[in-house]
């Protein structure tokens, strides 16, 4: 199966929810600094990582994303003071629940990237894309696993 996979050309599709003040600005910086990162990431700007409800992440997977990222400000740097505290508590729970739904938890990444960390952003996206490349497309996983009991 995995041999099959590696032979096929497969580009994972990644949806990233980036907070406006830190991570989105970090992505901007990555661009301005001419840093290269895979084009597999499509960024959706949110005011704060706290805006991202678990349902939105699940919805992204359902609509065909192979991986989802939620990036926000470092704890203590949140533009909205404590918005990302919610993210910090919400996302690990979601990650734990993903396995239950048959989605590999590695397909989901929550991380802090500040506005000055363009390099970290590029690196994170690169690594995440690489991780996803080693996994089969999500659609296949879900079709296959549909009959199995959890």
């Amino acid at each position, binding site marked *: 199966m995995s041999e099959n996979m590696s032979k096929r050309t497969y580009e994972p599709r990644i949806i990233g929810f980036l907070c406006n003040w830190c991570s989105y600005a970090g992505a901007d910086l990555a661009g301005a600094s001419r840093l290269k990162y895979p084009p597999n990431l499509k960024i959706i700007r949110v005011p704060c990582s706290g805006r991202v*409800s678990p*349902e939105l992440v699940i919805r992204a997977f359902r609509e065909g994303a192979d991986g989802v990222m939620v990036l926000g400000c470092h704890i203590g740097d949140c533009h*909205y003071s404590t918005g990302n505290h919610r993210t910090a508590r919400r996302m690990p729970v979601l990650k734990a629940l993903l396995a239950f739904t048959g989605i590999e938890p590695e397909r989901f990444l929550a991380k802090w990237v500040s506005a000055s960390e363009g390099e970290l952003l590029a690196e994170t996206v690169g690594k995440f894309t690489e991780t996803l490349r080693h996994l089969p497309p999500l659609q296949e996983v879900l079709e296959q696993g549909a009959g199995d009991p959890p």
Partner: protein
Amino acid sequence: MMDVGRHPNITLLTYSEVEEISGYVGNFTVRVRKRARSVDEEKCTGCGTCEEKCPRRVVDQVFEVGMGKRKAIYRPFAQAVPPLPVIDRDNCLFFTKGRCKLCEKVCPTGAIDYTQEDTILEIEVGNVILATGYDPFDARRISQYGYGLYPNVFTSLEVERMLSGSGPTGGRVLLRDGETEPQSVGIIHCVGSRDENYNPYCSKVCCMYSLKLAHLVHGKTDARMYEFYIDMRTAGKAYEEFYKRLQKEKVTFINGRPSEILPQDGKLVIHVEDKTLGRQIRVPVDMAILSVGLEPRHDAQEVAHMFGISCDADGWFKEKHPKLDPVATLTDGVFIAGCAQGPRDIPDSVAQGAAAAARVLSFIRQGEVEVEAATAVVNEMMCVGCGQCVQACPYAAIEFLEDARVARVVEALCKGCGTCAGACPSKAITLRHFTDRQLIAEMLGAINVMEEIVAV
């Protein structure tokens, strides 16, 4: 301070405490508990006769740091504004034993009122400035310096009181026996500051006040002075010049943080590694002065919570932006000034106080506030009243309507972060311009675009 007390537009509420605050910028309601001082403020002229005649003497732990006494009816210190005394009910003979009432007899205006009770005031204000100051570091916490154990280890505040002409020793610097002047004095910097075990930050003011103490103590006693410092931080106008001046006086500067103080032959021996010499030395002194650092007020967290602001990692009130907006907070209409925000000296505190006042005045002058365009909004038909959003909001901008059992967003307070929308289990609360529908549509578009890329 007198000017503040006399200003027609300023109402001073001393001996009072804020118990609750509600509302938002321009419309705060503050509930203040005005404690019973047992003295009628209208009648009292501040003549001080009651204080003079009161027979009960109590050790003053606050202003005299335990070195002097005050009466049971007293003013916190001679220059207190307003100059009204208060009866310390725990020590007053009338309140404890039921007799005396001498102050009532001697008061020329009949201002003493033993039946006075706490009053609750509801005040409407538009803006709030928090200038609650700091607590000095408790030197007992560093046991190796032996404060409280060895009598001749003093804190900087104790020496400060001794240097005052109206202080407990009448301006003389004396050892704990109350008679002997010290021949040699060691001043230890950074007690409780720049120390990973206590507070990692620099308290900023200690270097300068330590230099001042060295100058004054030397001037009064002609003692040999030693300053033990890690780095001499004399940044500020004319501060470095003062340091240079002290170097020419009879002060020895030793670069190193003392490891401990031990008593030996009636003296205190300060053990320290002199970084310049690169070796351990022992300095015998008669008196050791601990330059204690500044700490956030013990109740800073509760106050911050009450006013809807936050504290930083060290516990100081957090400003909106450390460089560009140092007196504003993330809650509109709540400003901070002075040491409540972090350690700072008098000129900085004065500047910050004026800055905070100016910010408030500009708000008042504008007469209106700008609100975010992208605020959250509750669909009351869908809201189940679980209160999740109320808890999630970093700005306390969501109120819960008890009668209708639904949440409502106060738009003047909402900053549009959307944390509530992320938390709402019934999707009743949405953030304008970042609704679920909009985000999902964006997501679908993005995935479709990628489909094309992947297909190629």
